[in-house]
């Protein structure tokens, strides 16, 4: 993956910046140019506004992965989940700070900023969100923050200090 391809998604992958339809108020992640919920889709064109997810959510389903995706070889076995954000959208991501066997449906989690994978020893390092159990607060830059959507997307994390 080229640097540009990953870099252009930085606001989404680092900060969970989504979108909300100003017609029907449905929240989307990743952001969408047009609202799939509105009955006549075209009425939402140009009316999708930026919306910041809080990072709070719960596990809807999960798997413990033993045959990894490319670049995830060093992390097996790892827990992968679909998380429902409190604002509505569902996301796929790893669950960390927990023994994979302890991940359960209904587990309350919050997003945490982590290293996703490295493209070899000298390649690009990809960062983005993973999720950690809520009681394990204090491990990520956004940990412990209130579930209310923040109006401005803060970029407070220093990627060089993040760990997988």
């Amino acid at each position, binding site marked *: 993956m080229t640097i540009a391809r*990953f870099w252009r*998604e930085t606001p989404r*992958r680092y900060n969970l910046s989504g979108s909300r339809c100003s017609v029907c108020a449905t929240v989307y992640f*990743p952001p969408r140019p047009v609202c799939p919920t509105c009955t006549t889709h075209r009425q939402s064109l140009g009316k999708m506004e930026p919306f910041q997810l809080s990072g709070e959510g719960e596990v*809807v*389903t*999960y*798997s*413990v*992965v*033993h*045959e*990894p*995706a*490319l670049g*995830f070889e060093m*992390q097996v*076995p*790892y827990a*992968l*989940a*679909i998380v429902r954000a409190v604002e509505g959208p*569902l*996301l*796929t*991501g*790893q669950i960390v700070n927990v023994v994979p066997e302890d991940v359960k*449906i209904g587990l309350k989690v919050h997003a945490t900023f982590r290293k*996703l*994978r490295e493209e070899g020893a000298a390649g690009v390092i*990809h960062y*983005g*969100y*993973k999720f950690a159990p809520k009681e394990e607060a204090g491990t990520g830059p956004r940990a412990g923050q209130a579930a209310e959507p923040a109006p401005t997307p803060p970029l407070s994390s220093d990627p060089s200090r993040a760990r997988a």
Partner: protein
Amino acid sequence: MRDVAILGIGMTKFGELWDRSFREIGIEAGFQALVDGKLSSHDLGGLYLGNMASGAFLEQEHIAPLILDYAGLAGHHLPAIRVEAGGASGAMALHEGYLAVASGAYDFVVVGGAEKMTDVSDTEASRIVDATADTEWELVFGATLPSLWAMVARKHMHEYGTRREDLAALPVHDHLMASKNPLAHFRNKVSLDQVIHSGLVADPLGVLDCAPLSDGAAAVLLGPLESARKYTDTPVKIAASQVACDTMALHHRRDLTTLDSTVFAGKRAFSQARHKPSDIQVAEIDDAYSIAGLVALEDLGFVAKGEGGVAMRDGRFFGKGPTHINTSGGLKAQGRPFGAVGVAQVVELVRQLRGEAKERQVSGAQVGLAHNVGGTGATSVVTVVERVN
């Protein structure tokens, strides 16, 4: 729209075909279909070729004219069209070929499906097929195709009490059927215990819940039903060919244990064919992962939502009830050369409807259904075929 018939079928051995090239297998299946249908290549109107990822697997794009060329037909200057829909590429090619003949644009077309997956390493091949899911919002975060399906399985177990052994029942059945299919990738039988305790790929799915990476090709010859008897004594009518799509990412679906693409393609197909699920004697169900086959039975309406696990446990579709599934061995055991799968499913149905399935024959088979899925269900294709008496 006029009625369309399948006049000929062809299929290569599925498996790890180290000694055979992409063009060899593509041509073999196509010629078998032409010869079986007794059609002169001078009467051919065109070629539709289902293939998912020749560029990634073989560093060769633009493969439809390539196959046509090596079939000796370059001089006829026929149209040759490649069709891609992930794991449903074969069925989608069939859909396009069907529409072309039904519309009257062409009279006779060969629909082929071919994939050569073993010329790259297993790791590379997995990366290529994972890309039928959403690369940017699933794979980048550590998802793989089997782990996404594993999350469908986990959710289904949670919602409906489906058990691990219910998932394992289909691979056991598939291997049993494939043991009677000389063209199948795997001819060995497996036990419930072996499937349950097979090495974990993505919990709860083990390696024996997952279809293999295979090489292989399959083809059918299509023509108008009204002139079918000139070419074959046993024409099979395409009673329905329907496609439906859904969100690319699994996490954006309305319900994580339902493939709405299958629900809609199925409903449209039953409506077009004027049949209901209990009218189907033979069905080839996409069981790329054991859970995929289980939810497909629900989504196609063969059982109610949530009852797939019990149906598998009772073996209701393994020869006891009105519908017998995956007589070929399914994707799990007949093999999964991605672009060839959807065409191979229909080849098996035609064998069954003609009464040529030998040891695997389901007696009195009149109506068959094929179900082929791309990715985690962003595309589903449902085809209904019927014996013409």
